[in-house]
Every structure is written in structure tokens, then in C-alpha cells.
């Protein structure tokens, strides 16, 4: 019966195959194939560096310092090996820094440091309070029509297969400018060193805020950014706002847990939009109505700022736990942490592990894509 199913599928799709076997037959003997093989075997199959990923959990829980150091060296070596060997080069001129997965932040309600099992407290009272604060926020004056956002990001890049995998990190400073027609300019500067303790040095104002420099400056046409539509979210009503957030997160499956999608959507909105207090208030109110969102208490983020942490309840099944960090004084989102809970997700590192974070450092309405302190 199974063979019949396979045959049936192949018959249905007969003729749609874009590249037939004969095209790739003997490709290992062609110039590109021979060149690739020569380059591969020219690199040493380093057995030591191949033994990854190591037990990140042990390191994160504060195991012996020497163990951590060894693991970091091993992970770093593997990541470097992978980067060199397979040519993942984000910026050839300035190769990205390489580090292990950073340790988790210290949350007030995570007693033993294990975020994967942290229950937290009900978030509704916290979110309701944040909504009130956000609604009363006094917005900074606008000097132009462009929405400017500066963030520091730590992006996980994995190469995987089998039961172990390689991992590398790509820290980057990202600046975006979104125009009213949805066109977007983005400057990405990769390779700023990320300290092994998982913190980074905040660049002095102006150092990063230059849209004319950067490793990669990309320009996207009208309609590329959803930033112009963010302000309208304040007035759509809770149900429509919730639906919009789910759609923005790409959550289209009927039985998908909503909470992870909602948190991801909130993070996405802030990627390139200056989010007004009224929008934040509406969003926090929607989240407050979801009982599967909890707070992990107070935390100091990677840029050294006080924040309140919100995440999904421990019984929400999702491979990655997204944690929103919100400034209690302004009720603005200041950061997002992503913690891997299940190794089934295919990231190739032991869970739990921090597999990415974003720290939002600056946002404002500006007149031109030169940034805040670069000449506007």
C-alpha cells in the first residue's frame, strides 16, 4: 500500500521534476564537482572540533569554569572550522565573532537558572499595568517621516545533521529606516565582538547610526515593510489585533498554540517600526487576555537595562520559548530572547540554550536615513 502511494504521487507529478537525474549524473566529475572535492579534502577532518555541541545546559547552569572554558573553546573551534570550511562568510572583510550560545539572563522568577522548566507567574496583572503605562507614554517629537530603529542582534546559524551539529553565531548591528510607502533601507554591520558572557558593549551614539556605511546596506521597494501600518493597530480592536498578530507571525495552522505566535509577532512589529505607546497599550492588553502567557519577573537585559520578562507558559508546547523584555518605566519593548527548549527543533545544540536575542537600542522618527546623531 505504501509503495502504491509512492507510485501514485510520482505518477501525479510526472513531468514536473525541474532537474532530471541525467543533468546531475556525473556532476562530481565536472569542474565544479572536482574543485569542491579538492577544497573539501584539503581541510583537515578535525576530530576534536567535530565533537560538538557539548552540554550547553551544564555550562548554563554554572558548571565548573574550566569546563565552560573548554566547551567554549571547542564550540568556538568548531564554529570557526565550519565557517571556514563551508564558507559561511557574512562579511569577508570582517569575519563575524564566534562564541558559544550565550548564558541565559537571570530572571527573578527562575530560581535555578533553568528557563525550560520555569513556571513564572500570571502575566495578566503585569501586562495590564504595562498597558496603562504605555497608554500614558509621552511620545518624542518627530523630526521626519522615516521610522528609524537601531538594534543589536545575535543570530544563530547552524549546520546540522545526524545526532550532533555545528553552530556559529553572527552578532550584528542592524539599522532600519522605513518610509511611509513601506520602502525600507537596512544597514547591517556584522562581526562586532560578542563577549563570552553573552553581553555586548553598546556602541556610543553615532557610531552605528550611519545609514551610509555598514557591511551591508540593502534597499527594499515600497510595500516591503509593515511599519507604516503599525500605528493603525491601536484602533482595530482586540480581536482584529490578535488576528493580525497571528497572521504577521505566519501562524496559519488551525491548531497551533497562539501564545508563541503572539510573542513572535510583537517582536517582528518592533523590527523596523517606531511603536507608539497606544499601540503598545493595545498589544499588551491583547496579551493580558491570554492565560498562557506568564511573567518570569524582573531581569537586567544584555545592554544593562531593567526590564520585565514575559513568555509562554511552561506547558505550551513549542520548541523555542520567546521572551519579551519590556521596560517597566515606559512599557516599551527593549529586547527579545529566544531559548531553545527541544532539540527536536533541529538547531543542533543541547537544550535549553539561548539561540538568539535582539536588543532594541534606539528608535525615532527621523528626516533622512542618516540616523539620529549622524547629522539630522
Amino acid at each position, binding site marked *: 500500500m505504501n509503495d502504491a502511494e509512492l507510485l501514485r504521487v510520482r505518477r*501525479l507529478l510526472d513531468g514536473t521534476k525541474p532537474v532530471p537525474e541525467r543533468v546531475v549524473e556525473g556532476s562530481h566529475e565536472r569542474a565544479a564537482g572536482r574543485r569542491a572535492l579538492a577544497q573539501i579534502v584539503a581541510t583537515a577532518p578535525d576530530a576534536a572540533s567535530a565533537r560538538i555541541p557539548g552540554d550547553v545546559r551544564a555550562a548554563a547552569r554554572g558548571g565548573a569554569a574550566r569546563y565552560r572554558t573548554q566547551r567554549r573553546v571547542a564550540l568556538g573551534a568548531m564554529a570557526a572550522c565550519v565557517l571556514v570550511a563551508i564558507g559561511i562568510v557574512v562579511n569577508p572583510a570582517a569575519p563575524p565573532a564566534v562564541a558559544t550560545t550565550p548564558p541565559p539572563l537571570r530572571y527573578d522568577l527562575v530560581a535555578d537558572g533553568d528557563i525550560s522548566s520555569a513556571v513564572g507567574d500570571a502575566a495578566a496583572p503585569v501586562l495590564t499595568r504595562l498597558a496603562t503605562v504605555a497608554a500614558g507614554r509621552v511620545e518624542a517629537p518627530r523630526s521626519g517621516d522615516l521610522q528609524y530603529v537601531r538594534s543589536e542582534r545575535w543570530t544563530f546559524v547552524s549546520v546540522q545533521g545526524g545526532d550532533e551539529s555545528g553552530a556559529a553565531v553572527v552578532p550584528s548591528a542592524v539599522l532600519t529606516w522605513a518610509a511611509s510607502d513601506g520602502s525600507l533601507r537596512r544597514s547591517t554591520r556584522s562581526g562586532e565582538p560578542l563577549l563570552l558572557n553573552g553581553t555586548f558593549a553598546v556602541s556610543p551614539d553615532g557610531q552605528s547610526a550611519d545609514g551610509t556605511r555598514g557591511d551591508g546596506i540593502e534597499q527594499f521597494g515600497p510595500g516591503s515593510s509593515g511599519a507604516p501600518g503599525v500605528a493603525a493597530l491601536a484602533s482595530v480592536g482586540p480581536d482584529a489585533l490578535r488576528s493580525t498578530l497571528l*497572521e504577521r507571525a505566519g501562524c496559519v495552522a488551525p491548531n497551533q498554540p497562539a501564545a508563541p505566535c503572539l510573542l513572535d509577532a510583537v517582536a517582528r512589529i518592533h523590527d523596523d517600526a517606531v511603536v507608539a505607546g497606544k499601540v503598545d497599550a493595545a498589544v499588551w492588553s491583547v496579551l493580558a487576555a491570554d492565560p498562557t502567557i506568564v511573567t518570569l519577573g524582573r531581569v537586567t537585559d544584555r545592554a544593562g537595562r531593567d526590564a520585565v520578562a514575559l513568555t509562554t507558559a511552561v506547558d505550551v508546547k513549542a520548541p523555542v520559548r520567546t521572551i519579551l523584555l519590556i521596560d517597566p518605566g515606559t512599557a516599551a519593548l527593549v529586547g527579545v530572547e529566544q531559548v531553545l527548549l527541544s532539540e527536536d527543533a*533541529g538547531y543542533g545544540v543541547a537544550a535549553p540554550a539561548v539561540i538568539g536575542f535582539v536588543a532594541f537600542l534606539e528608535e525615532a522618527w527621523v528626516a533622512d536615513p542618516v540616523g539620529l546623531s549622524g547629522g539630522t
Partner: protein
Amino acid sequence: MDEDQFAAMYADLYPVVLGYAARRTDWHVAEEIAAQALTIAWHRGDVLPLDRDGRCAWLIVVARNLLANSQRARLRAAHLDVRIRAGLAAGVPMVELDPASIVADRIVASTAMRRLGPRDQEILQLVAWDGLDLTALSRVLGCSSTAAAMRLHRARRRLELLMRAGRQDVDDVGTEASPPGDTARDTSSGPDTDGRDIPAVPPRR
């Protein structure tokens, strides 16, 4: 694994991995993906499965992840259909090929395929394009053979429904001048058994 052993494996499986990638992206990108996947195999001899089929599935998983990573990075800010974004977020590579390159006389099947969700597309492509059997399919998808068979069955049924709807569209165009009653659609079976709306085919990058 020594160099000779690796070279033998390379000769056997490089074309397979290249084929997998080339069916989903541009040729030059596919060559890079294949080379990267084999590089990882060279450096990860300690975890490489011993049998040929296992290695083949392992390499396809590696190529799949490399491709999805590469596409995520390249398409981060592009306007994509929510299904494609969800697929990329879940590690399912999208097919970037120009539809015109697909054989014209199978346009109904091709069009129907592109209207499926990314996961359905991938399962069908792995079987129809890459020739995977259920064991290999389950290895690539990271599930049991039974689950893979079930997912394949469902994907095939959804494809058939869409193809039926597609043929009806073609027939409708061909009988445009006929009385309305002659072109009535069979509405007993929607295009998607999950009851989800199927948006138009997303614009290409």
C-alpha cells in the same frame, strides 16, 4: 573515514545532493549547497550513518537546512506569502524555480503543487522529484515511517483536489461561450481539506 573512502562517497552522493538542491534553487547556489553539505560530512565522519541510504538521507537533511538558512537570510525582508514564511520559519526550503521552467504539459500539476502549503509541497517533492522511499522520507522529515506515510497520503489527497479544481478552471476557460449551467463547478470538495483559504500563488522574489 579516510580520503579515499570519502572520495567514493562523494562520487556516489554529490550528484544526489546537487540534484536535491538544484530542484529548489538556482544552479550556482545548488552547487554551493552541495559542496557545503559534503564538507560537513567530511568534518562529521563521527556522526555520519554507516549505510548508504542513511548517509543519503543525512546529507539531504543537511542540504535542506543549509538551503532554508540561506533562503531565510536572503528573503528576510521580502514580501512573502504567510505560508512560505511559516515554512521557512519551520526550516522548509521553498522552491525558487521559475514556473516556466517546469514542463508545460504538466502545468496543472505544477500549479496545484505551488498552491499547497510548504510542508505538503516538500513531502511530495521529496518523493516525486528526489525519489525517496518512505524510510528515507521519514529520516529526512524526522518522524516515523507511519507518520511519513500518513503525511504523504494527506498531501497527495490535497494535491489531487487542487488538480481537480485546476482542470475545472481550464475547462471553464475552454467553454467560456457555453451557457452558465454547463460550467457549474463541483463544489462538493473544496481545494483544501483543512478548510483553510488558499491565497493566490505568491509573487516570486
